């Protein structure tokens, strides 16, 4: 079933591994930042110094309106932002995987129903709904991750379904069926491993989407103000005069962090995806 690998242009393999390496390095840097925030950060991000300080030796990125050290905020912010992104993506991928697997394996009525639900979710106007839910539920970052995850699984489900449709027609699955293994067993031991390689890139892209959504929600003031995420930092930078006073060290770094992290995740996703020659799809 596997198509012969296409001959590639000269040097592309090299370039690919280089950009993948960059992505992995970036990802790891952020991951370590989040993990060891308390060691790396020069200050406690809740400690108040003089407000609105420009960058200096003491505060590399200056301080914000409450006098918090922006660099430390940024480092601690990676925790919340990564958690929201990864949390939402885990949820979305889990839902998408289950829906897709079951629809693709059982086919028939189950497929119709599950894909019908997927269609509904695909067609729900996401952004307004997410704003609505974020405004309605107490804005803690877990809730935001939950809401994003709950709305972002559709494309994963579709991809998984078509792949598991393919896989479940393959000989080894058919023989497992003949041997009388339970459906659950077949789905998780036979089909699942064959799907994982298309799920991982999707997962990465969902992380990216979730982080951008979290930042956008925070920008609308619907984030969790007691949590320091990159999105909330941008929000405060804008509501507290960062833009108007051109305090670039306040609002540019969190924006760049979001961009860099999303970039690393997307690049990782792409390189995994292209390796598997799966359909590129980002939404």
């Amino acid at each position, binding site marked *: 079933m596997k198509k012969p690998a296409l001959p590639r242009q000269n040097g592309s393999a090299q370039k690919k591994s280089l950009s993948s390496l960059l992505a992995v390095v970036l990802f790891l840097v952020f991951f370590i930042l989040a993990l060891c925030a308390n060691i790396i950060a020069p200050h406690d991000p*809740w400690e*108040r110094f003089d*407000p609105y300080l420009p960058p200096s030796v003491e505060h590399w990125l200056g301080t914000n*309106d*409450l*006098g918090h050290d922006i660099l430390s905020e940024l480092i601690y912010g990676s925790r919340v932002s990564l958690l929201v992104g990864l949390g939402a993506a885990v949820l979305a991928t889990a839902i998408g995987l289950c829906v897709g697997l079951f629809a693709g394996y059982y086919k028939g009525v189950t497929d119709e129903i599950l894909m019908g639900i997927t269609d509904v979710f695909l067609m729900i106007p996401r952004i307004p709904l997410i704003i609505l839910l974020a*405004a*309605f539920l*107490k*804005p803690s970052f877990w809730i935001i991750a939950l809401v994003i995850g709950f709305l972002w699984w559709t494309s994963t489900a579709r991809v998984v379904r078509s792949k598991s449709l393919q896989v479940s027609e393959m000989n080894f699955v058919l023989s497992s069926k003949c041997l009388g293994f339970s459906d659950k067993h077949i789905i998780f031991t036979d089909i699942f491993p064959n799907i994982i390689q298309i799920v991982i890139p999707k997962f990465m892209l969902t992380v990216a989407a979730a982080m951008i959504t979290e930042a956008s929600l925070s920008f609308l*003031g*619907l984030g*969790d*103000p*007691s949590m320091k995420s990159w999105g909330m930092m941008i929000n*405060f930078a*804008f*509501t*507290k*005069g960062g*833009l*108007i*006073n051109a305090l670039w060290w306040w609002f540019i770094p969190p924006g760049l962090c979001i961009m860099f992290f999303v970039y690393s995740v997307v690049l990782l996703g792409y390189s995994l995806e292209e390796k598997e020659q799966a359909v590129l799809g980002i939404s």
Partner: protein
Amino acid sequence: MRFLNQASQILGKKPFKKIFILICLLILIPILRSGPRVGYGIAKNQNNRILRIGTSGRVRSANIFLDSYISVFAQLSNPSLMKMTPDGRIVGQIAKDIHISSDYMRWEFHIQEDLYWSDGELVTPEDVKFTIEYIRDRSPVAGWMKDTIDTVSISDEKAVILQLKRPYTRLDVEMATHRLLPKHIWQSIDTPMQYTNPGENVGCGPFFIQKIDLNRGVILFAQNPFWKGPKPKIDAIEVHIYQNIDVLSLALDKGEIDVFYNYASSYPYQNLKKIRANSRFDFIEKLSTGLIFLGLNLGKAPMSDLRFREALSFAIDYGEIIKLDSLGYGKIPNRGFLPPTIEHYKDTTPLEYNPEKAKQILDDSGYGDHNGDGIREGHDGKNLALTLLVRPVHARLAELIQDYLRSVGVKTTTKSVDTSTWINLKDRYRYDLTIARTTPWGMIMHAGWATGYFDSRRTGEGVLHNIDDPKFFKLCDDLLSTRNKEKLRDFAFQVQDYYNGQLPAIPLYWNVFVTPFHTKFQGWLTNPLYGIFNIDNFLNIEPAQK
């Protein structure tokens, strides 16, 4: 532009080049064609006979009767019967003078005789009668009128007589907020709830609304051709609506607008530094009649305990709040709540930051930390964990308060919600602490002296209605019972003593309202109720001499 370069490189071959250039030209032609106008705003800057006001109020509809944002602006075209003077007194505007019966049951408003609507019709007592009845019958906010006003009649040619059902001393104050409607237009409008008029709105002020274009985000005022009063020295007024305060600030700095105005708001403090560097701007700075305060749910322990409230008041670092939240544009308040700008201000004890004392009080009044986890327990033995309900605008303040209370051993969780949810939860008393602000009108509504925020016998979207104390009710009723100056001052002092003694809310800071204005205009007048947005101001403003 990097994108375009690359695009043109990619497309730099054969037919795509032509298409690409064509598209670029299509985009660029209108930009280039605009001739000598180098940029937006720069050319416009020359005109100093049109006053441009920038606001960030979310005006939703072209309905001057019911849209609360637009009705603030509509007072210029549809003035109210009464107005507030720059020093805070309520005097007649459309009404020349008023006569009040000694039992406060009969109010007689004598109407100015030389007022004309912008379509040439004379303003008559009929219009006033119509307006009051129209508000009473059709406005959702005028429930009080139904309970209060019995009949509206016209005595002789120029007076409107209001016969009340119960004595009411503050009718003149109320009449400073309702806009006069032309009867000959509005009598045919049966459902104001479904009425908008984006075109000319007939008005009788020195200016009238020529156009409300919400897609463009402007309200345009032109001079009323039939205005007989002192001639305005400016030709027109434009209100520009921005949805983003930063963009408004940029526009101000660029000279696209001449002055900032939001009802009950200062120009954002954090944006001031930038505009202060712009030599074309000057500033009006006034201590407002309002303040930011920490509201307490008095019906719930431990907030019901005066000692606990005292302790809270010592835990808060007012100086730092002023430094961080108002960037110095605030004053440390007194326990008496009301700022000195309020009539009959009494100098009560200033609030003090003393965490040691706060801890002492908490220890002494049974809020010790017996289980040693760093969090004090209440009288029920459970950890003190309070919910601080705030709207996103107060997120930073909440962070500070949370920190102050944590350091004296009281745990709080901030719950940041949108306004509708805030109102909903607040009205159902589903909070422990909340941060709120007062508005100029709020300070004088009900019995005045901020009583409207606390009297639990009435509700409202911005008020806490959390005092359920007969002593306080009595004070409100006393204030409402008289217009006698001495008596009023006495009662006002008593109210401030009550606030001072009971601490129903902890004021955080008295704020200063700063209004930047372009120096090409001079002669600014403000009043405590509407700031610069008042007729006296727009009649007084003139282009500055160069």
